[in-house]
C-alpha cells in the first residue's frame, strides 16, 4: 500500500512526536528516516539541559510512541524527490519507490557545522581539538581522556564556532551552544572533579527557563571558569598539549594557556535533506533552512498547501521547543485533513 494520509520526512524527535499526535487522532502516517536509527541528533545526547534529564528516558518514551498502530516506520529510507500534483503529494525515496499522501510534514532536522572550516582552531589537525558532539559521546562512555589516554587536567570550551561568523556565512546565533557549553562543563566536572574547566565566550546567552540558574550553579558548585575572549589560534606545545591564545577582554590583556582538550561548540546548520527538499518545493529560506508561512501566525504551514514544517529544519531550536512545535504541526495537519476552515 503506497498511499497514506500523512508522510513525515525525518524520524527525529519532531517527526516522532508529530506522528504520535496524528496517530492518536486516527490519522495514518508513514515516517521516513534515512539513517538506520531513529531520533536523529538526540542519539548523541547523554543528558538534556537544563535539568540533566536522562536522554535515554526520553528516547524510550519516543520509542514507545512509534509503536502506535497508525504509524508505519521506514528506516534507511531517504527521500529524494517531493512534488505535488492536483490533489496529492508524491514522495519518491532514494530507492526509487513512490508514495502518495494528502499532506507532507518536513521534519528533516539539522546538521552540525563542520569545524574543519575554522582551520586556525586546529580541528582535523590536532587530536586534542574535538567538537561538542564528540565530547558528549566521550561523556556517555564515561571516559573523558586526552588523546594520549590520560586524564585531562584542563578542558577549554570555545563558544560560537560556526555561528555568528561572517567568514563561514552563518551570521545567526545557534541558540543551544551557550547552554550546552555550561552543561558540558558541568558534565566534565562531574566525571572528573579535579579537572579545570574554562568556557571562552563572546556572550553568554541563557535564554530559557532555568538556564541562568544552571549558569550560576556551574560557577557556584562546579567552579567552572568563564573568560570573555575569543580564541583565535591554537598551537601545539612541546609536551604534547595545546596552547590557546585569546584576549581576556574584560581585563584587556592577552591570555594564553595550555589545555589538554579544546571542545568546539559547533553550531547548527540546515541539514542536506532540509536544504534539498526545501529547494525542491520552493520554500528555502535564509541559510538554506526551510521557510514557514509566517513566523508569528502560521509557523507550521508553508506557502504550499498541504506541506508542513516542524522542528529544526526551520531554525535552531531546543528540545522542548522542537516537541512543542511538532505537536502544533500535528494539530495543523489534523485541521487540514479534516477540511476545518481557517
Amino acid at each position, binding site marked *: 500500500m503506497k498511499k497514506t494520509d500523512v508522510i513525515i520526512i525525518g524520524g527525529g524527535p519532531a517527526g516522532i512526536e508529530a506522528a504520535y499526535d496524528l496517530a492518536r487522532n486516527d490519522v495514518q502516517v508513514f515516517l521516513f528516516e534515512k539513517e538506520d536509527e531513529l531520533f536523529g541528533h538526540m542519539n548523541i545526547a547523554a543528558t538534556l539541559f537544563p535539568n540533566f534529564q536522562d536522554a535515554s528516558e526520553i528516547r524510550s518514551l519516543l520509542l514507545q510512541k512509534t509503536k502506535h498502530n497508525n504509524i508505519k516506520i521506514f528506516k534507511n529510507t531517504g527521500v529524494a524527490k517531493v512534488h505535488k500534483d492536483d490533489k496529492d503529494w508524491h514522495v519518491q525515496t532514494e530507492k526509487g519507490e513512490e508514495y502518495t499522501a494528502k499532506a507532507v510534514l518536513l521534519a528533516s532536522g539539522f546538521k552540525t557545522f563542520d569545524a*574543519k*572550516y575554522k*582551520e*586556525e582552531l*586546529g*580541528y*582535523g*589537525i*590536532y*587530536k586534542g581539538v574535538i567538537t561538542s558532539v564528540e565530547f558528549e559521546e566521550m561523556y556517555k562512555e564515561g571516559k573523558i581522556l586526552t588523546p594520549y589516554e590520560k586524564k585531562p587536567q584542563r578542558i577549554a570550551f570555545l563558544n560560537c564556532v560556526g555561528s555568528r561568523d*561572517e*567568514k*563561514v*556565512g552563518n551570521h545567526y546565533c545557534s541558540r543551544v551552544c551557550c547552554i550546552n557549553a555550561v552543561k558540558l562543563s558541568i558534565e566534565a566536572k562531574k566525571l572528573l572533579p579535579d579537572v579545570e574547566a574554562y568556557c571562552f565566550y563572546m556572550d553568554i546567552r541563557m535564554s530559557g527557563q532555568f538556564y541562568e540558574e544552571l549558569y550560576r550553579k556551574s560557577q557556584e558548585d562546579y567552579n567552572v571558569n568563564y573568560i570573555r575572549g575569543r580564541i583565535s*589560534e*591554537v*598551537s*601545539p606545545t*612541546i609536551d*604534547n598539549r595545546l596552547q590557546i591564545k585569546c584576549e581576556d577582554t574584560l581585563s584587556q590583556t592577552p591570555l594564553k594557556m595550555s589545555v589538554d582538550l579544546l571542545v568546539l561548540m559547533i553550531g547548527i546548520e540546515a541539514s542536506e535533506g532540509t536544504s534539498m527538499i526545501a529547494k525542491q518545493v520552493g520554500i528555502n529560506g535564509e541559510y538554506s533552512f526551510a521557510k514557514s508561512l509566517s513566523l508569528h501566525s502560521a509557523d507550521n504551514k508553508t506557502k504550499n498547501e498541504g506541506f508542513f514544517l516542524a522542528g529544526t529544519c526551520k531554525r535552531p531550536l531546543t528540545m522542548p521547543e522542537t516537541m512543542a512545535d511538532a505537536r502544533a504541526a500535528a494539530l495543523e495537519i489534523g485541521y487540514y485533513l479534516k477540511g476545518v476552515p481557517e
Partner: protein
Amino acid sequence: MSFHPFVIPFTAGAAILFAVIVYKVYKWTTSLDRKQKFIVKQNIFTIKTIRAISEVFREALIHRNIYRKNPVLGYMHMSLAFGWFLLIVFGKVKASLYAGTFFEPPWLAIFFNFFAVEKHTFLFSTQLTFIMDFLLLIVLSGLALAFIKRMKSSLLGMKKTTRHSSFDRIALTSLWLIFPLRLLAESTTDALHSNGGFLTGSIGQLIPTSAASFMELPLWWAYSLSLFFFFVALPYSRYMHIPIEVVLIFLRNWGATAGEHHSGYTDIQINSCSRCGICIDSCQLNFAAQLGNVQSVYFIRDTRYNTLSDEVVNNCLMCGRCSNECPVGLELTLVRQQYRNKEEIPGKFYYEYTKSIENQENIDVIYYAGCMTHLTPSIIHSMKKIFASAQVSYWFMDEDKGVCCGRPMRQQGFVQQAKNLVIKNSRMINSSKAKLLVTSCPICYKSFKEEYNLNIPVMHHTEYIEKLINSKKIKLKPTNITAVYHDPCELGRGTGIYEQPRNILKNFSLLVSDNERENSLCCGGSLSNAILDLRLQLKIRDHALDELTKERPDVLVTACPLCKKSFVHGNKAAVMDIAEIVAKNIVTNKKVSEKVYSNELYGVLINE
C-alpha cells in the same frame, strides 16, 4: 609658389607640438633616478638599441600585442598608426622628389596636392600617387572601425571601452576630422586639376567644378586647422602616447624600470598610456564586482590631470592582471604603488619593540611560515613533516614571536615602517648559520626576493619541495585524485613561479583550468586592497572559485595561505595547499623524528 596662409595653422601647431614634446622628454629623462640613469647609459650603445627599434616597429606601429588579443582591434590600431606613419614617410619622399631637394618646406608634403597641381613627371610619381591614396584608404578604414568601437565596443571584442575626458574629446574629434577632410580637400583639388589618385580622383570626378572652386580653399583651411587643434591638444590628451611610447620602448629596452619612488620614468609611463581600455576588461573589480571607475586607465588619467582621489589609488587588488594585458607593457602595479607611498620622517624608528631571536645552531634551512600561515596551521605541519622526512635541520623562525615580512605595510605605502621591519628580519636571517630560507607565503617570498638584501638564497616552499623530490630526498605515493592548480597572484605574476608547483603535481592528475599562469584570477583576499567592501570581495572570490571548479576536481590546490583561506570559506571544493597534498602522500619508511613531529597529521580533507 608653395605657400599659402592656410599652412600657418599646421606649421604653427607642429612647431608648438615639437617644442612641447622635446621639453617634456628632456624634463623626464633628466629626472630619472640615479639607478635608472646608470643602467640606461650602460646599455645605449649595445644591441639593445636595435631591439628597441625593432620593438617600436612591431608594437608602436604594427601593434602586434593588440592583434593577438583581437585581430580586428589590432587592425584598427595598426591602420591608424602605421597607415599615418607611412603617409608621412611617403608624402615626404614624394615632396622631396617633386621639389628636387631634401629641404623643401615641411608643409609641402602635407598639402602636396594643393601645391603640385601640374601633371607630375618626377620619378615614381604615378606609383607614389597610388600609394598615397591607398594609405589614405587604409587610415579611413581604421577610422571607421574606431567610430564603430566607440558606438558598440563589443563588435571589436571589447566589453567596455574607456570613458574620456574633455581634452580627449577635443583631440579625438580633431583627429577623426583630419583624414576625411584630407580626402575631401584632395578630391576637391582633383575636381579642378585632376591630380588625384584612384581614390581622390574618383571622388573628385563626382564633385562639380563650380562647387569645387568655391569649396577648395575652405576645405584646405579646415584640414590645416584640424591638424592644428590635434597637435595642440595632443600633449594634454591620450594621444601623447604616440611620441612618448617610442621613448618608453627605448628606455625599457635599455633596462629602466619603475622602482620604488616616483621618477621621470614614471611620468613617461603615465604619458604612454593610450587609454585603449584593455585593462578594464581584465580587471576583476570590473567584471566580478561591477566596480568600473578605479581601473588602471582611470588611475593614470587622474594622475595626469592631477585629480587623483584616495579611493582610486587604494581600491586596487594589485593582482597584476592589467599589467599582464597592457599592450604598451606599462608597469601598472609599480606605478600605482608609487602613488600610495607616504612621506618618510627622518630619524624616526618603528618596531623597536620587536624581539630579535638569534639562532646560532648549525642548521640547513630557516623556515619562515609567514603571518597568514599561522591561520592555516595544517600548512605548517605539512612542512614540518616534509622537513622531517627529508631529514633537514631547520629553524622555524617565526614560530612564536614572528615579525611580519613588511610587504603588507609596503603595499599600503608605509615605506619607512616597512623598511624597519625588513631590517629586523634581515638581521635575524643574516646572523644565522643557515644556507637557505624557505617560506610558505608568496607575499613574504616576493618581499624577501625584492625588498631584502639577504646573504642566503630564498625559496618558496613549492620550489623547495620540487628540489627535494628531484634530489630524491622525499618520495611521493602515486594517486589518482584530480586536482586543479590555482596560481596565486604574488607567486605567479609576482615572481614567475609557474612550473615548480606543476612539476610537483605531475604525480597527481592535474587538470588544466582556463585562467592559469599569467591569466590566473585573483582570489579576492588581497592584502593590497584595504578598502574593498567585503561583499564585493566575496563576489570576486565566488567568481574565481566557480571558474576554477568548473571541471569538478577532487581538490583545488593552491600555494598561498590567503588564497586557501579565501577559497575554503567559499565552500565549493576541498582546498589544499601544495605542502599539504605532498605531506599527505609522502612515502615515509623512516621513523619520523618525535621532537619535530609530535602530533600526528590526521584529518581527511578530501573524500577518498
